[in-house]
C-alpha cells in the first residue's frame, strides 16, 4: 500500500530571503553578466506589469492578467532555454514569453484586443496565449513528440498554474508525454490561487510535484521566488529532455501578488495579511536584489538608471502598439481558413459594405 503522507520530497532552494546562499548549496554555472541580465529582466517585467495595470485603469487596454510576484519563476525558467525551444503559455506568462523573444509591442496589442495580438513573429517558437486552462499542455506534448520523431533536440515547455493541474488535459498530457518519453517540461507556477479558489480546494496532494510520480516521470518542487533555484531545476530538466531522458514536472511555488485579472477583486476572498506577508517578506525581486548587492553586482544608482531606461523602453512599445492601425471587422474573415469559402467571402463583403457606409468612404 502507498501512503501519500509518507512521500519524501525536497524543496529546492538556493537563496535565503536575506539574499545569502543556503548552506551546502552552490551557484548555478552563470556568469556575473548573466546574473545581472536575469535581474534586469525581472525589474523590467515588474515595471511592465505595473504599466499595464495603469493603462487598464486609463481605459487604454482591455482585461489584463498581472504576473507580479511570479517574475523569478518565469525569468528563471525561460533563461534556461535556447532560442529554438518552444513555449506554450497561458495568459499569465508574458514575462517568460518576452524573455523568449516575444515583442513587448505584441504583448500590448494582445491586451488591446487587436486581431494581430496573438501573432508571433516568424522564427519565434512561442504559441499564442491559451485561455482554456491546461489546453496547451497537450500542444506542448505533441510538439515534443514531433521533435523526437524528427530526431531533433529542442525542448517544449508548457506553462500553467496550480488550477490547471485539476484539468483532464493535464492528466492526459503528462501521461502521453511520459509514455512517449517526449522532451517536454511541464512548468507549473503554483501561485496558490485559481481566481478565488485556494490550493487546498484544488488538490489534496501535499505537493503538485508529486503528481509526476504516477506518470512515471521526474517531478521537483522548487522555491519559485528564488530565481537561482528555478534556473537550476529548469536547466536540469532541459538537459534531461534534450538528452532523451523524457519529460519532467516542475512545481515552482510562488504567489500571485495581484488580482486574477483587472476584472477581479481579490479582497473578496483573500486575507490581506496573507498577501502582505508574501509581498513584504517573500518578493522574488527583492531577494535576488539582496544577493546581487552582496556580490557587489548592482548599486542604487545603477538601478535608478535601469528603471529610467526600462520605462523608456516600455513607453516606446506602448507608442508603437498604439500607432498600429486598429483591426477592422472584415479582417476577421482572413484567418478562418487558408482561403475563405464562398459563403464566408460573401459575409466579408457584407461587412466591408457596412463599414464603408459607416465610414462614409
Amino acid at each position, binding site marked *: 500500500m502507498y501512503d501519500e503522507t509518507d512521500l519524501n520530497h525536497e524543496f529546492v532552494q538556493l537563496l535565503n530571503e536575506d539574499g545569502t546562499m543556503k548552506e551546502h548549496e552552490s551557484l548555478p554555472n552563470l556568469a556575473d553578466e548573466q546574473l545581472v541580465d536575469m535581474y534586469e529582466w525581472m525589474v523590467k517585467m515588474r515595471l511592465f506589469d505595473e504599466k499595464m495595470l495603469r493603462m487598464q485603469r486609463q481605459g487604454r487596454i482591455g482585461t489584463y492578467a498581472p504576473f507580479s510576484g511570479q517574475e523569478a519563476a518565469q525569468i528563471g525558467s525561460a533563461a534556461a532555454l535556447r532560442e529554438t525551444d518552444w513555449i506554450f503559455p497561458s495568459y499569465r506568462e508574458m514575462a517568460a514569453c518576452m524573455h523568449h523573444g516575444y515583442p513587448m509591442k505584441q504583448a500590448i496589442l494582445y491586451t488591446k484586443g487587436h486581431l494581430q495580438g496573438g501573432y508571433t513573429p516568424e522564427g519565434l517558437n512561442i504559441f*499564442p496565449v491559451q485561455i482554456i486552462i491546461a489546453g496547451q499542455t497537450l*500542444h506542448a506534448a505533441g510538439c515534443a513528440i514531433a521533435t523526437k520523431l524528427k530526431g531533433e533536440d529542442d525542448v517544449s515547455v508548457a506553462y500553467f498554474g496550480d488550477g490547471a493541474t485539476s484539468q483532464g488535459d493535464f492528466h492526459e498530457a503528462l*501521461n502521453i508525454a511520459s509514455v512517449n518519453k517526449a522532451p517536454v517540461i511541464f512548468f507549473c507556477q503554483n501561485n496558490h490561487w485559481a481566481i478565488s479558489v485556494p490550493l487546498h480546494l484544488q488538490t489534496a496532494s501535499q505537493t503538485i510535484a508529486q503528481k509526476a510520480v504516477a506518470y512515471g516521470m521526474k517531478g521537483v518542487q522548487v522555491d519559485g521566488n528564488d530565481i537561482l533555484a528555478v534556473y537550476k531545476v529548469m536547466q536540469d530538466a532541459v538537459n534531461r529532455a534534450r538528452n532523451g531522458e523524457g519529460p519532467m514536472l516542475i512545481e515552482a511555488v510562488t504567489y500571485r501578488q495581484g488580482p486574477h485579472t483587472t476584472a477581479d477583486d481579490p479582497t473578496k476572498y483573500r486575507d490581506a495579511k496573507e498577501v502582505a506577508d508574501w509581498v513584504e517578506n517573500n518578493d522574488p525581486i527583492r531577494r535576488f536584489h539582496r544577493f546581487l548587492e552582496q556580490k557587489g553586482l548592482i548599486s542604487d544608482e545603477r538601478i535608478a538608471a535601469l528603471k529610467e531606461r526600462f520605462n523608456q523602453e516600455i513607453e516606446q512599445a506602448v507608442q508603437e502598439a498604439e500607432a498600429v492601425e486598429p483591426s477592422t471587422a472584415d479582417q476577421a474573415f482572413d484567418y478562418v481558413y*487558408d482561403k475563405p469559402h464562398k*459563403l464566408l467571402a460573401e459575409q466579408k463583403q457584407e461587412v466591408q459594405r457596412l463599414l464603408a457606409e459607416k465610414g462614409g468612404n
Partner: protein
Amino acid sequence: MAQLTMVEAIREAMRLEMENDERIVILGEDVGKNGGVFRATDGLQAQFGANRVMDTPLAESAIVGTSIGMAVNGLRPIAEIQFLGFIYETMDQVAAQAARLRFRSAGRFTAPIVIRSPYGGGVKTPELHSDSLEALFVHTPGIKVVMPSNPYDAKGLLISAIRDENPVLFLEPMKLYRAFKMDVPEEAYEIPIGKANVVREGVDVTIVAWGPPVLLAKQAAEEAEKKGISVEVIDLRTVQPIDLDAILSSVEKTSRLIIVHEAVKSAGVGGEIAALVSECGLFSLAAPILRVTGYDTPYPVPSIEDDWLPTVPRLMNAIQHVMQF
C-alpha cells in the same frame, strides 16, 4: 482498376499519401498492430513503422491535442477518433483549439490535421457509437467537415483532406465501410472539398443527402420514377463548407427540396440548408422545404433504431407531399 470497399479505399488513400509525404503520421487508439477496430489502418504500421503509425493511450483529448502540437512542429497528423460519439471527450481540442488556431495566431500557426472518425447508424452498436454529430462542427468556424458516401469519393476526398491546410473532420459511415465495392483508381487523386455531386438527375424534386442517406435517396428516386416523379439526388459530400450553388441550381430546375440526414432534426444541417435556400432561392420554390431526419431524441438503442432512422417510405411520403404543390 481495382474494386474496393470504402474502408479499403480509405486505407489506400492514407498509404499513398504516407508514401509521398514523410511528414504524415497516424495516431489513435488501436490503430497500430490492430489496424484500427475497423481495420482502416491495417498493415500501415507494418509498412511505415511505429513512429509513423502510433497507438496512443486511451485519451481522445490527447489524440487531438497532441496532433495540434505535432502539426505546429511540422508534421501532418491523421488522428483517429474510434467512434464519433467519443468526440465529446475532445470537443475543446477540436472546436476551441484546432479550429481556432489560425485565427488566434493571426495566421502564424495552423493545424493541418485530419480527424477521421466512423459514425452513423444501422449497424446495431452500443450507445454513443452511431451518432451523427456533423452539425456541431458545421457550427464551428475554422474546420471543414467531409462525409463521403462511396469508396471512390472516400479516397479522393480523404486525399484532399490530407493535403488541405486546414483541420478537416473526415466522417466515415460505418454502415458503408464494406457495404459494396466500386471501381477505384490505383493512383492518388483529389476530389475537391466543398463540391457537391449530382448523382442522379431529375426535374420534379431535389433531394440533398450525404453519407448513407445518399443511398436511400437513390432508392426513393427509383421508386418515385415508377410513379412518374423525376427526382434529382445531390450528394453534398462536404457539409462544411456547403456547396449552396449546386443546391440552388437544382432547386431552380425542380422547385421542390427535401433534405435527408441521420442526425437529429433540430438545428441540424438540414435546417441550415433550408434557411440558405429560403434566403437565396425562395422564388424558385413551389412547395415547403421538407426534412427527413433522425428524431430529436438521443440516438436510440439497437432494437428500435430502424424505426428511428430515415427510411425509403418516409422519403416517399415527403416526395408525395411536396408533389401536391
